[in-house]
């Protein structure tokens, strides 16, 4: 009987998903064996205890400082997302052109902290730097989302319009667009933009870690000094700001807040064209090529040597570590998401779902950079804090979405409960969607992995930060470009995988 079944053919739609998952996990295990997982602090539990004690006894040392930094955090985020949505919308109109797509992919592949580090060199620690650091990468992201939403819209709305003999006039296609595609996509655009605003507040807070006057600045100072009670005060203020957004940030008040934000923190900088010109024409030009009016064999040879040095000592190790850590984080994120999604599922936590989802949203709200910073204080510099921080943050985001996805499942009346329900009914059904979310998030995870280098983990961010500290902007630029190329490459690979595995590729709110 069993031998008979062996002779029959096996044809499973799950095979590709299973194999892909297996190889991802296997590679992650291999990476884990090569990763630096040392815990170098003498007493991690003691430090954790101090933090917990601080978290339980928050204090506010100066209310004006707290409120100013909150207002700054909010203003940067609102200005940034406003500018980003306008620019992103304009770019989305041309999203079918490869060049526009590539440009959007490029500007969003560079993390806002890297943009900030670049603009600080030109415009100092100014409000203009904060605005641009957020607006530029977010414009790239929003352009992509808007562009994809426009493509998703039911095409019959446009094709049903009466056709004209001389179509193609820009004004006519624009009015068609405003009557069909735009209203159809509007709701999703608004939802997505408001979700991105929450992310922008996190980004804005984090900009403080490189010196801008947002809440991250005070978090970094107080945490570094071990002043955990005060840090908790700032931290809770940030959480409160994000948690209460929906109550006071209403659509019709938005113009008012926007005017307020620009009035309170007008984007300006103490800079001069001379400074900008010097930065572009000298500082970021690779050292061997500086001041050379025309290239000759000698300078090219010197450049080759310079680049080779940089490649061997910084770019390559940075890339390897970023990919290594990124792979571990990706799989860890996936595992956590699968563990956490029942918290937001009516199939598992019927009565407690609101509470469970609140936990996921709280974990999602914690900026990953801040989590990693805390982890670093507890465990010392290694990949452990990065893995935990990125895994928790991203795992909660994907867990929340997968849990919400289980709403749509209709199960037969006599299904089991507990683990039987989880493994036999729910997991197989949501796995495809789960992988889609995870692969969609991959690019973001990798970008965050690179940025955590600023905290001392030897990913690309570490070398970029060091280059900025040594005022070697030429190196910094090449390294930033390398991290951008890596992100673009991974994003393309993930898209290829999603298509190959027939995964739904709409982003929802990732």
């Amino acid at each position, binding site marked *: 009987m069993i031998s008979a079944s062996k002779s029959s053919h096996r044809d499973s*739609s799950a095979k590709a998903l299973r194999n892909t998952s297996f190889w991802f996990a296997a590679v992650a295990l291999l990476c884990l064996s090569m990763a630096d997982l040392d815990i170098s602090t003498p007493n991690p539990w003691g430090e954790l205890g101090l933090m917990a004690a601080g978290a339980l006894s928050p204090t506010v040392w100066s209310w004006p400082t707290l409120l100013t930094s909150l207002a700054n955090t909010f203003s940067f985020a609102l200005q940034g997302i406003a500018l980003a949505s306008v620019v992103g919308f304009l770019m989305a109109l041309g999203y079918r052109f490869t060049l526009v797509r590539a440009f959007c992919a490029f500007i969003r592949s560079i993390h806002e902290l890297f943009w900030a580090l670049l603009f600080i060199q030109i415009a100092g620690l100014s409000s203009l730097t904060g605005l641009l650091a957020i607006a530029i990468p977010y414009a790239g992201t929003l352009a992509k989302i808007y562009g994809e939403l426009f493509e998703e819209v039911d095409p019959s709305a446009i094709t049903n319009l009466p056709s004209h003999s001389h179509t193609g006039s820009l004004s006519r296609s624009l009015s068609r667009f405003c009557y069909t595609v735009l209203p159809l996509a509007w709701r999703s655009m608004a939802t997505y933009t408001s979700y991105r605003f929450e992310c922008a507040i996190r980004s804005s807070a984090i900009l403080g870690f490189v010196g801008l006057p947002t809440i991250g600045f005070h978090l970094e100072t107080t945490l570094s000094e071990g002043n955990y009670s005060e840090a908790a005060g700032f931290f809770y203020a940030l959480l409160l700001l994000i948690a209460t957004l929906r109550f006071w940030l209403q659509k019709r008040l938005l113009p008012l807040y926007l005017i307020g934000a620009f009035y309170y923190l007008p984007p300006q900088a103490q800079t001069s064209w001379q400074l900008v010109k010097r930065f572009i024409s000298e500082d970021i030009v690779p050292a061997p090529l500086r001041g050379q009016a025309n290239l000759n064999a000698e300078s090219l040879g010197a450049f080759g040597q310079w680049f080779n040095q940089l490649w061997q000592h910084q770019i390559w190790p940075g890339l390897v570590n970023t990919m290594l850590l990124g792979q571990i984080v990706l799989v860890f994120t996936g595992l956590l998401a699968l563990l956490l999604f029942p918290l937001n599922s009516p199939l598992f936590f019927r009565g407690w779902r609101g509470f469970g989802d609140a936990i996921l949203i709280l974990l999602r709200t914690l900026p990953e950079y801040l989590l990693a910073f805390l982890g670093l204080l507890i465990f010392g510099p290694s990949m452990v804090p990065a893995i935990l921080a990125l895994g928790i943050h991203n795992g909660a985001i994907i867990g929340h979405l997968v849990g919400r996805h289980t709403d749509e499942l209709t199960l037969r*009346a006599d299904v089991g409960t507990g*683990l039987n329900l989880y493994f*036999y009914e729910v997991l*197989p059904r949501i796995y495809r969607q789960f992988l889609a979310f995870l692969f969609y998030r991959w690019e973001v995870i990798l970008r965050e992995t690179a940025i955590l280098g600023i905290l001392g983990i030897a990913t690309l961010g570490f070398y970029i930060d060091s280059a900025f500290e040594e005022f070697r902007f030429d190196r910094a630029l090449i390294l930033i470009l390398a991290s951008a190329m890596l992100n673009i490459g991974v994003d393309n690979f993930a898209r290829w995988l999603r298509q190959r595995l027939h995964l739904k590729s709409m982003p929802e709110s990732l």
Partner: protein
Amino acid sequence: MSSPLFEFTNQRLTYEGRLVLDNLSLRIYPGERVALIGGSGSGKSTLLKALREQCPDQIAWCPQQPGLVPMLSTFHNMYMGALHRHSVFYNLANLIKPLPAAKRAVSEIAQAIELQHQLYSSVDRLSGGQQQRTSIGRALIQERPIFFGDEPVSGIDEYQSEVLLNLIFQRHSTVVLALHDVAQALRVCSRVIGLKDGAIILDAPSAELEASDLADIYGISDSSLNPSRQ
């Protein structure tokens, strides 16, 4: 006669808050093979659900919407009917790699319902009829004394469906089926219950009935309701 397995006296049955069957009185005894017939929306599924709630642990249930897990194999979808008989660790191990005892139990039934060659294909690669047989297989493996089926063979050809129904009768002492094929209901069941407009309009041993007696139940005009023959 022994005491009834299922009993309703003057019962009101609702579906999503809407009254479906009113003033319902009904008894089903062990050993009976009952066919429920009636047009769509006549309350067959609601009645089956209410009956099921009377002793859920005794009933192998084969729903109209199979609710299979598309990407799992036929083997796993059928084995799901036996989850409650094993420890969760056994179930999880069997999910990763089919275990010998589970394989024996499932392939015995798979052979009977002619799915042995599709056992390790995922069910989304199966035809509609094969999926329906998988759903029957999942009910058979529950090994319970009573079988309830809501149109269990609706998508399967006449010859095949009779083979499957006989298999169900062999393995269960009491069977209640919602069927749309009146002739088939008369052929295979011992008792026929007809539902229309929120009431039982016919309840008789199939030996006393002919297909023409049942025409009313699907008839367009609702003026000539048959009195209930108790």
